[in-house]
């Protein structure tokens, strides 16, 4: 060890510092590759430029939500309200645009609303001592109710302006704008998660709250920030979705929270906190939507989709446990 030299140690250290490719991530890439290979044989339409971009575009909304979810899950919490936040913030942008408010202001207002809702989640969890599950479940239901009342169950329409339309349907170098947003967000959040204090503290919080408290970090504030971030990200997804769909119906974003959680779990983030990967989450979302796409192309009854996805989640949770079990066995014998 001594003569290994410090350079080696630093190089290794820097490697860890860069993209953290662990075995699980590698597994995800392999799964993804396998799906692509199998599907390219089964359907001529699958491995086309258009179809793959479409999969990415469909995945991008849930992927964005799942990024926020990864942060929340890393603290050992959960945010069930993201689907509703997505709906209500999209609604906010649409409503303001319909009132001829400037696009930038409308978007800013929608994002701010997301942050506020997220912060309220954080406050109820920390100050009222509610479990994240209960607090965000309640928030999810309340927000959905508000959206129904607000819209009067009639979708918001005719708010489109050409600049706002670009967000959902525009393309840069042929790639849909939501996909670009997802990629940029991934890079920014990756830095926040892996290379900045915030991410480090979040992982520590999910690992042991006591340790974080003892280290002199303000635990409540940290939690509130995490839920606010999740709210902000959900609001961004909502704005993109409002632009993409050109109408905001009161059901918008419903069920997205579960898909976001599924993407994060498939990606290798632990529900118990302390462990997570954003790259894995992105892959998880892509795998999820690629399977949906594949079943779509093969004309499988859409109800089957849910069942299959349920099994995939089960598999994703079981694999690391089984791997750990086998590893333990080998080591012990």
């Amino acid at each position, binding site marked *: 060890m001594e003569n290994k030299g410090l350079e080696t140690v630093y190089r290794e*250290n820097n490697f*860890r510092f860069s993209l953290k490719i662990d075995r699980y991530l590698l597994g995800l890439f392999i799964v993804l590759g396998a799906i692509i290979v199998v599907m390219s044989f089964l359907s001529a339409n699958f491995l086309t430029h258009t179809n793959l971009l479409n999969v990415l575009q469909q995945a991008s909304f849930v992927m964005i939500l799942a990024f926020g979810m990864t942060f929340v899950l890393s603290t050992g919490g959960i945010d069930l309200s993201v689907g509703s936040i997505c709906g209500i913030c999209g609604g906010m942008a649409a409503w303001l645009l319909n009132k001829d408010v400037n696009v930038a202001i409308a978007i800013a207002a929608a994002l701010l609303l997301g942050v506020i809702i997220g912060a309220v989640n954080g406050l109820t969890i920390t100050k009222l001592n509610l479990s994240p599950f209960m607090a965000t479940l309640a928030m999810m239901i309340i927000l959905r109710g508000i959206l129904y009342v607000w819209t009067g169950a009639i979708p918001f329409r005719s708010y489109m302006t050409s600049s706002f339309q670009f967000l959902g349907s525009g393309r840069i170098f042929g790639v849909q704008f939501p996909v670009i947003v997802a990629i940029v967000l991934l890079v920014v959040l990756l830095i926040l998660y892996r290379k900045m*204090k915030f991410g480090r*503290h979040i992982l*520590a919080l999910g*690992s*042991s709250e006591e340790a974080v408290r*003892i*280290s002199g970090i*303000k635990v409540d504030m940290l939690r509130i920030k995490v839920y606010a971030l999740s709210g902000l990200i959900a609001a961004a997804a909502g704005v993109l979705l409002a632009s993409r769909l050109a109408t905001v119906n009161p059901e918008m974003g419903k069920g997205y929270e579960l898909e976001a959680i599924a993407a994060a779990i498939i990606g290798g983030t632990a529900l118990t906190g302390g462990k997570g990967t954003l790259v894995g989450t992105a892959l998880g979302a892509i795998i999820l939507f690629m399977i949906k796409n594949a079943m779509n192309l093969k004309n499988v009854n859409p109800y089957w989709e849910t069942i299959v996805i349920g099994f995939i989640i089960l598999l994703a949770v079981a694999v690391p446990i089984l791997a750990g079990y086998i590893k333990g066995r080998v080591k012990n014998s």
Partner: protein
Amino acid sequence: MAVEDDHVLISLTGITKEFPGVKALENVSLDVRKGEVLALVGENGAGKSTLIKILSGLYHKDNGEIRVRGKSVEIQDARHAQELGISTIFQEPTLAPHLTAVENVYLGREIYHSYFGGTVKILNEKEMYQETEKLYRNFFSTVEDLKRPVIELGALKNRVIEIAKALSVKASVVIMDEPTAALAEHEREVLFDFIRALKEQGVSVIYVSHHLKELFLLADRFHVMRDGKHIATVSADETDIDQLVSMMVGREISNFIAKETVPIGEESLRVIGLNQPGVLKNINFHIKKGEIVGIAGLAGSGRTETVRAVVGADRISSGAVEVDGKPFRIQSPRDAIRAGIGLLPENRKLHGALIEMSVSNNITLASIKRVLSKKFVLKKKAELDIASDYVQRLGIKTPTVHQKVRFLSGGNQQKVILAKWLFTKPKVLIFDEPTIGIDVGAKVEVYNLMAEFVRGGGGILMVSSDLPELMGLSDRIYVMHKGEFVHEFSRDEATEENIMYYASGGHQ
């Protein structure tokens, strides 16, 4: 109490703290002088950790005044305590298990690269690594573990990381709550050197330990507590162990280990040719009924590994175990319990108590059948009687036997686990460091319970780093060195010198 005295760094006056049903601190006053080592001593549950947690910002006092450098302060939280120059090593493990050593050491005070005029701060992993490595190197010669999640390292290494973390803070007062409980001799000495160096730099140290002998190597003054009250503060030159003990317990107890002569019976456990590649080499030993057998050795010599292998907690490559002369296949601790072998593990935090359950449930848990009538119905009264009996004998300080173990002091939690294993009444009991973190009064009671157990025909195997304890109790002592049993002493032959001779490999 001369608050203006600039030798006094921290001064506490009339501190009171109450928990439901427990007055943990009652009107406690204490001065910490610049550059001194102040030893905080008292029985389990005396209030030492509570006092420390108040100073560290984890608990808030109910009453009283805290002055730091003469200025009255209300310590809000851990950050505030750090800002006041107070750094603490707590009694319980406090690391974030999924983070690495480096990440843990710098948690909450990370080093950055600043970009865009300080608006973006990126963690400077390299520098944090280098700094941690420097600290770490003082304790270990290698640095291989710095990038692994600390959960994968042992209790001992975790302890060292906690110490490194506390020492890496520029503090004017370092508080240590039983820092050496999991440490090996080598690290212990390094820690002591650190403490002496801190002293020289004018840093004060508050040091909590039940190891009074160890304290005399370090302490300038002793602050004695009993039942949440301050009893006395004495200078180290003006006191001795006996006086401290009598102040701590408030009654006379004999420090002397009276060895009972018990008739030695048939062989009850025999271990033959135990091997574990790279760890244990051809371990052979036996224990007879009525015998207390000790295992001596330096830390890392394989003592804990031996006992863990015997009860099937770790896999072995070869070896056999005979119980009462009959071969017994032991592949897991469950098998061991069925065979009548119980192990009180060294690391009780990980393998010990169910901290959310009550004291009485914990004590009877492992032998639940004995408090069942007609198989299924719990004899509530029997359970409570048994629990109360142990609580009384071991002096477990708790408001009632229904209290959750979580709310007991560190040493009292240990006693609960000890009671649990004593109550299982197996054929052979294996103790790994039975009296770590346990106060003087309770130690004697543990010894009595051990004597009672062998009187009833049980056999005891015990690992202890406390040589006087080991020699005082054992009928025979095996000495380990580098994973092998290198010598066996009878009770009369064993002296500290010749045990250490074999333990350190002097025979080779």
